[in-house]
């Protein structure tokens, strides 16, 4: 794995390398170089299989983290390519030309996080949600509890508990 990362470093800039385990590492790269690095990994380094593409919301840093998890089926190693993009007008270059399933991932990310992928086929079409008018629901600032209280009528006579408090009372009554 170290050799591969060294080879990437000769061509591109990597800001952080984390070796999670022997066959899994994460590298952080810039938004501008990401698709080029992923293409290099796919075509030259044998990372032919895209395991997943997902995002995490680091609202405190005002950033979204995009993770492209690539797998090399021959060497049996995984490399996660992480890209941090701004939450404000979040947008990323599309990778739909590299793998067929990427368009679906990008469509979901647009809907759930509001990250745009210009030119990705069908990226603006609703995927899971239909008629959604609130902020994208997987963003950290979307309040699920508030949403359900506002949207669904509370049933009379229904007792509601805070799950953490309830379990604590059950399991450790004396604490």
């Amino acid at each position, binding site marked *: 794995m170290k050799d591969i990362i060294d080879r990437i470093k000769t061509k591109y800039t990597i800001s952080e390398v*984390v070796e999670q385990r022997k066959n899994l590492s994460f590298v952080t790269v810039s938004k501008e170089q990401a698709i080029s690095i992923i293409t290099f990994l796919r075509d030259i380094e044998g990372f032919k*299989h895209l*395991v997943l593409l997902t995002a995490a919301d680091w609202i405190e840093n005002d950033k979204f983290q995009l993770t492209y998890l690539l797998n090399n089926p021959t060497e049996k190693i995984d490399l996660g390519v992480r890209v941090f993009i701004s939450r404000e007008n979040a947008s990323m270059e599309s990778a739909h030309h590299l793998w*067929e*399933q990427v368009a*679906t*991932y990008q469509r979901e990310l647009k809907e759930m996080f509001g990250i745009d992928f210009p030119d990705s086929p069908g990226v603006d079409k609703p995927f899971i949600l*239909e008629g959604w008018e609130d902020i994208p629901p997987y963003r950290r600032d979307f309040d699920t509890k508030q949403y359900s209280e506002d949207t669904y009528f509370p049933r009379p006579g229904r007792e509601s508990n805070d799950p953490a408090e309830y379990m604590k009372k059950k399991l450790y009554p004396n604490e």
Partner: protein
Amino acid sequence: MNKKRFTINEDRSLFPEKNAEGKIDIDLSSHKYLKLWQGPQHPGITGNMSLELTVLGDEVMDCETHVGYLHRGFEKLMERRKYIQCFPIVCRVAVPEPDFNEYCFASAMEELAGIEVPEMAQWLRTLVLEMSRLQSYLMWIGGQSGAFGSGIIGQWSIYLRDLVLDRFEELTGGRVYHMYQLPGGVRGLLPDGFKQRMEETLLTIEKFMDDIDKVMFNNAVFKKRSVGMGYIDPSWVNKFGITGPNARAAGIPLDVRKDYPYLKYPELDFDVVVGKDSDIYTRADIRRKDLLLSVDLIRQIFAKMPEKGDIKAKTPNVLHWKVPKGETYSRAECTRGEYGYYMVSDGTEYPRRINVRGPSYTHAVALLEKMIINTNIADVAGLMVSLHTYPPEIER
């Protein structure tokens, strides 16, 4: 057996020509085409998603997958739950295979927290995963045969699945959802006489599989409708992210149990089942052999596992457990392919982000939409089941 690739309507002169992108220009106002919705109320096991088909005669010209009928926002819910509170959630992501979710979630958490799972717990986890595989395949047999008109086979196989669920009930207290695996290990040892009762169940299943061989795999109708149908080209495997039996039927030996050994699989003796024709029949055959492999693996596990031992590593109080900051990906081989959990921890008591990588995400959208073109509408259900998709994984 005639291995010729299955085609319908070989005279294409009545069909419109394809444009430069390889698609046809569909003009609904020409009254040649009909929009047909398959699902979401389809009674097969692929329910809860729908296909918007555009048909010309009885041939599918265009297809768009619609999901969202089962979205419960699991990934978001988990961000608002402590790690231990996620266990009743993860098992509900894939109804017939809850244990793979539990295992992937638990192992990702253990990796981040640096917890070593005791040997006995590893054996029990391997056992539960194989039992889960067994009952999921039994459910699939019903779906596949039912889609091609043999509804009775589904009734038999669901009965046998119930026998496996009886064993699950004995071991875990739950039939469908088990919540048996916890961070650091499992909840309990095998009950008295469990091995013997499991062996009886395995013998019943083996006998049933002999019948299945006769009534399904040697059935003229099933063969005629499945041989040469639904071809997956081996070059699509990486292009579409295909894993599991769908890739193995195309001759690509992808199996997480062998490629990325986990739990006690390195100590078990088995070969990856690989096919070559890559049609519906081959995929069904791969799954049948995989089911019988699971039976064999359960016997091997019983023969090799110790009688007693620690089943849970020492962990912090689960209600105040701060999992160290970091991220990881944990995978397992489920009946449909690679199942994985991508976990990001920010060092608090709550996960920052969990992403579930279900094999259906790639199989049921991009791949299915491609494969279904030029299929007869009567074969659509059979084709869907042959990819063995579960919609809840798409819309976690």
